[in-house]
């Protein structure tokens, strides 16, 4: 599962792909210094700091998820020295940790994506809930995951590497159940 991995048959109403590891860092800001440091980081990566913990901020080839008041997850879709970029922007006003190997990306795409996800996560995926451009941190079975809705039918899941194989199995089995 080291390469882009298509889980289900082509042509199915759902495409499930396990992506390779990507640059991913966690940034924490010290209380009181958050404003200035976050601003420097946002300027360096060219994104607008999300106002709340639901909306994803995009930057060229990447995404910023505000996972706590003082904490960001930054994900890049291409190889780049994200850790160094963030460290130089944050300076002494926070901490930056590389967790690129800790998470795998699971992409769901298709008209059945919502139906499949409702079998595992207790988040409202309707129009009043997780709208495109929003994300949520939740649990799927035993695993803590982050769900990013890219469009009405496309979702990006950040899943713990150690759970990746089991979660892929879970999705495949749940998909089979849906076809029952």
């Amino acid at each position: 599962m080291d390469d882009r991995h298509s889980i289900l048959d082509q042509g199915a109403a759902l495409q499930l792909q396990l992506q390779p590891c990507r640059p991913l860092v966690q940034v924490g800001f010290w209380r009181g210094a958050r404003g200035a440091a976050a601003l420097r980081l946002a300027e360096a990566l060219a994104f607008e700091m999300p106002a709340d913990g639901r909306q994803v901020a995009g930057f060229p080839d990447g995404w910023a998820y505000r996972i706590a008041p003082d904490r960001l997850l930054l994900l890049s879709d291409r190889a780049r020295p994200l850790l160094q970029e963030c460290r130089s922007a944050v300076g002494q006003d926070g901490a930056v940790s590389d967790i690129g190997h800790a998470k795998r990306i699971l992409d769901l795409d298709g008209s059945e994506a919502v139906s499949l996800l409702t079998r595992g996560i207790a988040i409202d995926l309707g129009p009043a809930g997780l709208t495109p451009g929003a994300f949520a941190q939740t649990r799927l079975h035993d695993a803590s995951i982050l769900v990013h809705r890219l469009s009405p039918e496309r979702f990006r899941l950040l899943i713990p590497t150690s759970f990746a194989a089991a979660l892929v199995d879970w999705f495949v089995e749940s998909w089979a159940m849906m076809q029952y």
Partner: protein
Amino acid sequence: MRRLPDRGEIDRARPLRFRFDGRALTGYAGDSLASALLANGVRLVGRSFKYHRPRGIYAAGLEEPNALVSIGRGDARRPNIQATAVPLSEGLEAVSQNRWPSLHLDLQSLTGLAAPLTGAGFYYKTFMGPNARAWMLYEHFIRKAAGLGPPPTGPDPRPAETLHAHCRVLVVGAGLAGIAAALEAAREGDSVLLVERDSLLGGAALSTPPGSQERAHLETLLTALAAQSNVQVLTNTQVFGTYDHGCFAAVEEGEVLQLWLIRAERAVLASGALERGFVFPGNDRPGVMLAGAARTYLNRYGVLCGERAVVFQNNDSGEAVALELAQAGAAVTLVDPRENLDAERRKSLESAGIILRLGSRITAAFGRRLRVVEVSGARDRARLPCDLLCLAGGWSPVLHLASQAGARPRWSDPHAAFLPGSLPGGMAVVGAAAGDFRRVADGEVVPETGWSRPLQPLWRSGEGPMAFVDLQNDVTAKDVRQAHDEGFVSVEHLKRYTTLGMGSDQGRTSNVLGLALMAEASGRTIAETGTTTFRPPYAAVSLGALAGAEVGGAFHLRRRTPLDSLLREEGAVMTHSGLWERAWYFRENGPDLESASCREMEIVRSDAAISDVSTLGKFEIEGPDAAELLNRLYCNGWSKLAVGKARWGVMLRDDGYVFDDGTTARLGETRYVMTTTTAKAEQVLSRIEFLLQTAWRDLRVQVCDVTDHWAAIALSGPNARKVLAKLIGAEQARDLPFLGLLETELAGAPVRLIRVSFSGELGYEVYCPAQDAPSVWRALRRAGAGAYGLEALGALRIEKGHVSAGELDGRTTLDDLGLAAMASRKKAFVGQVMAERPGLQAKDRKQLVGLTAETPLSSGAVLSFGPFAGLGEGRITAATWSPSLGCYLALALLRDGRAQHGREVAVHDPARGRLCKALVRDPHFLDPEGVRQRG
């Protein structure tokens, strides 16, 4: 009984074959099992719970108390299913229950002869002695004689899943009121989820004849509903529970068991009302049926349940049934205790050929299958031949879901029923569930109920034996009276003493009757008597549905290390350790666990080997206050730990007991990496995050979980340095001191090496990014390292006397484990104050010791110096065979253990039937001075 050619919602073009007690029968698509049985002339469907009396079909839905059958075969068999709630399907197999040898000849019905002796509570009074164990003997026979269908013995083979749904408005029940409520909410733009137990929408309107106003109204509503895109409809789905925060649980028991967890901002309960009968002798005979049920079978399923029908009502709802039965060809008599009836209605009924007996009541029913009823008026008494008796004794709103949410039911005299009390915010009850029994066709009505004439409360219409209140549990009017006379006057006591209202029907037709009789006996009103507490589930739910897909191997999601695939390729036999899958032993070292793990221990003690320890918790701690955080968390000090060095630490819980241990290395001035035990990783992280977000908000430090980012490989053995030297150079390998940290490259991967030992040998922990783990592992193997698994890892640490999960069980203190000297006196740390409690300082606490023996020792075995009593003097926490020492070893917690070194202790393992002797000694069996690990 017969099927009518021109009525019903059934699809006569789709005949379905099914079996009942082995007899081949045919029904139609759209039938329920009950309607198909009735259409085939089957009157006798079951035997009663206690007296084994013959019973027929009494109702048409979930309120059915009698017609319990087993459905399906093998492990897919479902016992105690109401035939009225099962949609007919091709090949369905149903079997009657609680009879021997057959339904028609049930010898157990002889127990009915003893009925005068076996009233309420007779179990409790009769089967009491001669000792407490005797009940186990009696129970075996009682359960055989009185019971329901036996459950299957294997797991439910039906696939199951759990689904989550969200909506602004949940509407429970799709009768006319429910559909109207859903439409209203939808028109306001709300997202609506409409849930209906039945396969069709319409509720009671489906029981009305073709062309009725209710049907016309239903068609209008359904057309409007279909035009609403914001309404999701779930049919065949029963909402069975209300839970906190607007959460409802529902189940669909189809080919796939589906458990729905529904979160709604608002809920409209349109769950309808259920009819009830009257109490009189013989009211349980096959052929006695609720009037509404007879109407449903007639109009929905096209089954005329009797040719000579008597309808007994105390409210208006029986009249329509009488009319429709007469129009279908039955000879009908209407019995009503009320005298008055307006001329127009009288004319309407009489012109349909219905014989009216006003001011009368049914006082008894006779026949193994109903043949005669006794009708008593003020001045006369008569016997009427009949084969169908329809009871219309009033309606009980279905309040369960509202009551589960905290709405206490209130009694209404005009309705002769409990109505929903004060409802929680966001919840509404509509239609019959709210006491609105109006039918669309009615004109002038009584404002409260919607009926044209007031209901005449009537609970017991005849006196005598075998007058049943609760048909499912064989509770009679006499039983209720007896319970009262013996002091069980509370409704909760009444329920438990008599079993009134228990079972699969949950007393839907009997509860109000029982309460009314208790009120009568105690001289109170029904309102004063009250009702029992409603708890979920409202309807029976298969355990398989509650378990969902999370059964067997899917009970937990298994975590796999980055080396998982490689280790399997290398012949590792895997085992579960918490959620993790870990290499237990390697086949290259032996054919089985015992031989392989012993060989692996020998390799570690004599050469060098590697083990996958990626499961250790790993947290990166960064910030100017990182050292202060460690100082507060751990009992030992961290301020003086140099960059490039590591230290073993122990942390306590708030209550002073030992929480966890692990090694933390200093990566830079403000950066550390902490490891925890595999078992406590999540708890430790959660604890630190909690403290940083609450008590220690002043600390400038981030804790980042890098457990999955870094793989970890333990390299152990006297030749470990030589192995390492081949990969990083002899100089670097030589210069890395004990508890030193080195960041370098190995096999092209960036690695962190920490010289630390869990086995007691010269050892290193090699940390590398997860994706690089296979190449690092292969390089270490190529450099000469063997491989060892979890079994050897655990045994090696016992030989060394290192504590682990067995000893860190939340009940041990630092001193218990011989670690009291670690606690710093120069700083404060979590648990410090509580660790000073007298109870944690007591001299007779259990302390860590080692045991050696000539025979096998096992975890959990009890230790004692004298005769065994209670929990003994201590217990074994971990045990193994030691190839190095040639004997069995164990770590144990023993009362005042350090003072017992050199003594012989008895070891009792009742679970395995073992009893042996062991020698108490120091827990550090091997190299207590630590020469080897510092080598």
